[in-house]
């Protein structure tokens, strides 16, 4: 009897687990796609009924033809790869600068006083205002495009890092202090793990800012890239190509965003506490 019960419990627990991961697989995707699919369906119908002017909103089907065309000519891939490269450089440079400075600013109040107003000033400046200065300092090659992207990603990462560090539980900091952690250890072993969730939000925001900044970045001397694709298409009033650019950015961005969230939950298994509602 006892053995049977244990087996039953174990089966239950397994089905329970499977159910949960079921939701996270197909169910999640279906739910996530419902809304976009409805929008696209309405849009297609509206386009066929000529309710909307194809000059602005070509029908989804005609966009997908252009999509396939550009894919098969390999053009879209080139644009995507070029942009992706800029984006990855820019994003990593921004993270590499913003996280350490963010930790310093969050941790050291004096440092905060020194740099806060300057950063708070720089934060507001439109990227386009930087372009002449970037051209002057960095030329018109990749460097200045990457700089625009760095600027786009810097502040979300920075501010969220500061916030994360400021809201580290002071009790845990005391534990670190009482165990005589060096400042470096303190950052590595207390601040960063505590602030990780908030920093990740900064990274996600920073990344999406990168995508958004592509058009601006590729205003500087770019013959290839998704941003320049959109700009060109705009100048030629080729709405279908604009949408191809938008969809590519949206989907690529979504995938990388998803990746980032996966990395986050892999790095932080204890985060599920926040879903489970546990005690400590």
């Amino acid at each position, binding site marked *: 009897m006892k053995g049977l019960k244990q087996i039953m419990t174990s089966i239950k627990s397994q089905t329970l687990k499977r159910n949960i991961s079921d939701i996270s697989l197909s169910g999640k995707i279906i739910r996530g796609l419902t809304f976009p699919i409805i929008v696209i369906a309405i849009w297609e119908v509206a386009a066929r009924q000529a309710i909307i002017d194809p000059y602005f909103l070509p029908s989804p089907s005609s966009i997908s033809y252009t999509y396939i065309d550009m894919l098969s000519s390999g053009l879209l891939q080139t644009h995507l790869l070029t942009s992706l490269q800029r984006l990855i450089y820019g994003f990593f440079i921004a993270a590499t600068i913003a996280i350490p400075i963010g930790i310093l600013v969050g941790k050291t109040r004096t440092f905060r006083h020194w740099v806060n107003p300057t950063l708070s000033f720089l934060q507001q400046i439109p990227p386009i205002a930087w372009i002449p200065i970037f051209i002057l300092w960095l030329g018109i090659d990749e460097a200045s495009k990457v700089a625009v992207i760095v600027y786009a990603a810097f502040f979300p990462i920075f501010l969220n890092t500061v916030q994360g560090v400021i809201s580290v539980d002071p*009790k*845990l900091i*005391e*534990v670190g*202090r*009482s*165990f*005589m952690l060096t400042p470096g250890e303190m950052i590595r*072993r*207390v601040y960063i*793990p*505590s602030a*990780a969730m908030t920093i990740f939000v900064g990274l996600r925001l920073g990344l999406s800012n990168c995508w958004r900044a592509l058009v601006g970045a590729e205003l500087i001397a770019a013959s290839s890239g998704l941003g320049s694709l959109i700009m060109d298409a705009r100048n030629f009033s080729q709405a279908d190509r604009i949408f191809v650019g938008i969809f590519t950015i949206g989907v690529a961005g979504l995938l990388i965003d998803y990746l980032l969230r996966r990395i986050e939950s892999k790095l*932080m*298994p*204890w985060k599920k*506490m926040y879903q*489970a509602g*546990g*005690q*400590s």
Partner: protein
Amino acid sequence: MKSILAVKNINKTFYSDWGEVEALRSISFACSKGEFISIVGPSGCGKTTLLRIIAGLENPNEGEISIEGNHAKGPGNDRAVVFQDPRLFPWLTVEKNAAFGIQNLSKEEVKSKLDSILKLVGLENFRKAFPYELSGGMAQRVAIARAVAFKPKVLLMDEPFSALDAQTRARMQLELVNLWQKTGKNIILVTHDINEALLLSQKVLIMSSSPGTIKETVEVPFSYPRDVDTTEFLRLKKHITSNVF
């Protein structure tokens, strides 16, 4: 005897928007090498504040702490704290939390040290558990393991056993006395339990509240292991309970 820890004339007042709280007034005592002292007193009398000041985590308004004759400012390698709440790192497993303070040891040494310490606190089956998966008493035991593994000269413990049942507590108390006798550490134990204080320590500081002062210092003359049922023990306990508290 040489005093390893000296607390000299500590005053501490907290200032708030709604008023001030004089938490400690003129606290002085010394702790000679290898001594086991406990501090008892009513809730809110300043026990934790005193311990935090000794740990270097809080600055007194007046007075100073010295360790082996040197003025101690801030925390030091010589002291480890078991806080009143467990304060485990939520992102570390039980074993990693316990090993948090261990330094300069090889992997094997850490492992064997952890083995013995986790056994000591009865958590050898929960090595891989995260703090949110522990019961209140288990979490507190991890915190004790963490402090003990740090091997400080002075062990500062803030009501470490208050979340434990009688049996577990008795075992842990026994282990603490063993550890103390084996290593010759100094221990300062904050507790609200006079029985515990008399059972474990050589000297009991009895505090009173508002402001927190040391009302009386009681030497406990019994040898270890102690028996709570002897008439001398009961007499001393009764004396403290009725006269002092």
